[in-house]
C-alpha cells in the first residue's frame, strides 16, 4: 500500500516559487492500477516521482507498506528505487546497449552474477513477447517493441510497484492497446501495483480500477474509475471528458476523410 499524506512540492526558481503539488492525500492499495490524470503541467509527473524520490517532497510524507520512506538516503534510497519499476513516455532505453543488456541493467547495478542476470533477462523478454530480439539495439525497434523491452527492464528486480509515466503517449492506437493489455496482464499475474500517469481518459478507462484527477497540483477528484467518469464532480474532469470525446470525434472525422 502506498499512502501519500499532505504532500507538497514547491520548486524554487529564479522567477519565484512554483507550487507544483498542494496538500495531496492519496491511498493506493496493493494490486491497484491507479490512474493519475490531468492536463499537462498539472503535477502528475512530479507526484509520481515523489513515490520513488526522484523528486523530494517539500513537506508531507510517503508511506509504503507501513514504512515512511520520505527521508530515505544513501543505500536505503537506492534499495527503495530498485524495488519500484518505472517506464517512460519515450522508453528511455540505453541506445548503446543491446535489448538483453538493457534488461540486465537493473540487475547489473545490484551486482547479480552474470549467468543469473542473463537467464532472468531472457525469461522477461520471453514474457513481454520480445524473445528473439536479444542482440538487437533499441534504434532497430519500433516504439511498441521498445516499450515492451522497457517493461521487461522495469520488471527485472521483481518490483511490487510499477510507475508508468505516459507510457503509451508516444504510441499509435493499436500499439497502445497492446501495451495496456500487457500492463494489465502483469498486474493480474504478478500482482504488481501500478501507478499510471496519463492525460488520456481512454487509457485510464481501459486499465485503471481507481483514478485521481489532478489540476494545478491539487487532487480535485478521486474514486473508482467507472464512478468518476459516469458522474464527474469537478469541472476539470468534465473538461477532460469533453476534450476526450472531442478528440475522438476529430479522429473519426480524420478517418472518414
Amino acid at each position, binding site marked *: 500500500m502506498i499512502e501519500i499524506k499532505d504532500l507538497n512540492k514547491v520548486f524554487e526558481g529564479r522567477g519565484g516559487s512554483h507550487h507544483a503539488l498542494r496538500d495531496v492525500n492519496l491511498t493506493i492499495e496493493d494490486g491497484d492500477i491507479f490512474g493519475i490524470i490531468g492536463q499537462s503541467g498539472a503535477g502528475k509527473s512530479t507526484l509520481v516521482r515523489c513515490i520513488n524520490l526522484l523528486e523530494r517532497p517539500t513537506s508531507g510524507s510517503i508511506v509504503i507498506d507501513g514504512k515512511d520512506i520520505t527521508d530515505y538516503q544513501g543505500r536505503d534510497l537506492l534499495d527503495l528505487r530498485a524495488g519500484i519499476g518505472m517506464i517512460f513516455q519515450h522508453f528511455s532505453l540505453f541506445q548503446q546497449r543491446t535489448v538483453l543488456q538493457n534488461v540486465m541493467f537493473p540487475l547489473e*547495478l545490484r551486482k547479480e552474477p552474470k549467468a543469473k542476470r542473463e537467464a532472468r533477462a531472457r525469461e522477461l523478454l520471453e514474457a513481454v513477447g520480445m524473445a528473439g530480439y536479444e542482440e538487437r539495439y533499441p534504434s532497430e525497434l519500433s516504439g511498441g517493441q521498445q516499450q515492451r523491452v522497457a517493461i521487461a527492464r522495469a520488471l527485472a528486480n521483481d518490483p511490487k510497484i510499477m*510507475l508508468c509515466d505516459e507510457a503509451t503517449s508516444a504510441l499509435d492506437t493499436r500499439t497502445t492497446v497492446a501495451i495496456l493489455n500487457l500492463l494489465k496482464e502483469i498486474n493480474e499475474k504478478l500482482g504488481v501495483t501500478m501507478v499510471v500517469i496519463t492525460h488520456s481518459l481512454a487509457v485510464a478507462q481501459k486499465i485503471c480500477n481507481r483514478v485521481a484527477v489532478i489540476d494545478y497540483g491539487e487532487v480535485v477528484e478521486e474514486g473508482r474509475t467507472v464512478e468518476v467518469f459516469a458522474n464527474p464532480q469537478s469541472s476539470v474532469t468534465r473538461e477532460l471528458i469533453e476534450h476526450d470525446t472531442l478528440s475522438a470525434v476529430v479522429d473519426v472525422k480524420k478517418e472518414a476523410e
Partner: protein
Amino acid sequence: MEFLASFFDQYGMLLLDGTVDTLVMTVLSTLFAYVIGVPVGVLLVVTSPNGLRPHKALNTVLGWIVNIGRSIPFIILLVAIIPFTRLVVGTSLGVPGAIVPLVVTAAPFVARMVEQSLEEVDGGLVEAAQSFGASTWQIVSKVYLRESLPSLIRGVSITFVTLFGYSAMAGTVGAGGLGDIAIRYGYQRYQTDVMIAAVILCVVLVQVFQTAGDVLARKIDKRR
C-alpha cells in the same frame, strides 16, 4: 626517381626521426591529457547546477581553472611553465620537456570536450538509471561514459590532431618533430623540398588518425 632516391638517402633518417618524435609527443600527451581531462570533465557535469551532485563552489573553481588553462596561448605556456616542467620530468628540453606543456594545454581542452559529450546524453536515460537505484558512480560509468562513447572517441581524434599541430611549436624547446623540421629546414635554410616532405607527412598522418577515429566512432555507435 633519382632525385627521390638521393633525397631520401640524405633526409630519410631525419624525416623518420621527426615522425617518431611527433608521434611520441602527440600520443603520450593525448593520453595524459585524457587521464587528467576525463575526471575533470566528469566533475564539471556531476557538480553542475542540474547535475547529479550539484556543488556550486567546486563547479565554479573548476570552470575557472579550465578557462584559464584554455586562454593561455601554447607558445607562451611552453616557456612560462618551464620551472614546473623541470619539476615534473627533470628537464625542460627535448620530447619530455614538450610533453608537459602539451598536457597542461590539452587537459582543460579535453575536460571541456568530455563535458560536452556527457551533456549530450539524454537526461531521460540518467533518470531511468536513477529510477533503478543506480548510484552516482554507476550513472557516470554505466550511463554517461558508456552512452557517450562514440562522441568521446570523436573528441580523442580532435585532441590528437590539435596536439599534433601544437607539437610543431615544441621545436622551440628542442623537441624535434616534423613541424620543427619544416621550420628549421624550410623557413630558416630555404630547403623547400625538405619542408614539403615534412608537411606531406603531417597531412598524411593527420588524415590517417582522423579517419581511424571517425571509422571507429561510427562503428561502435548503435544509434541511427
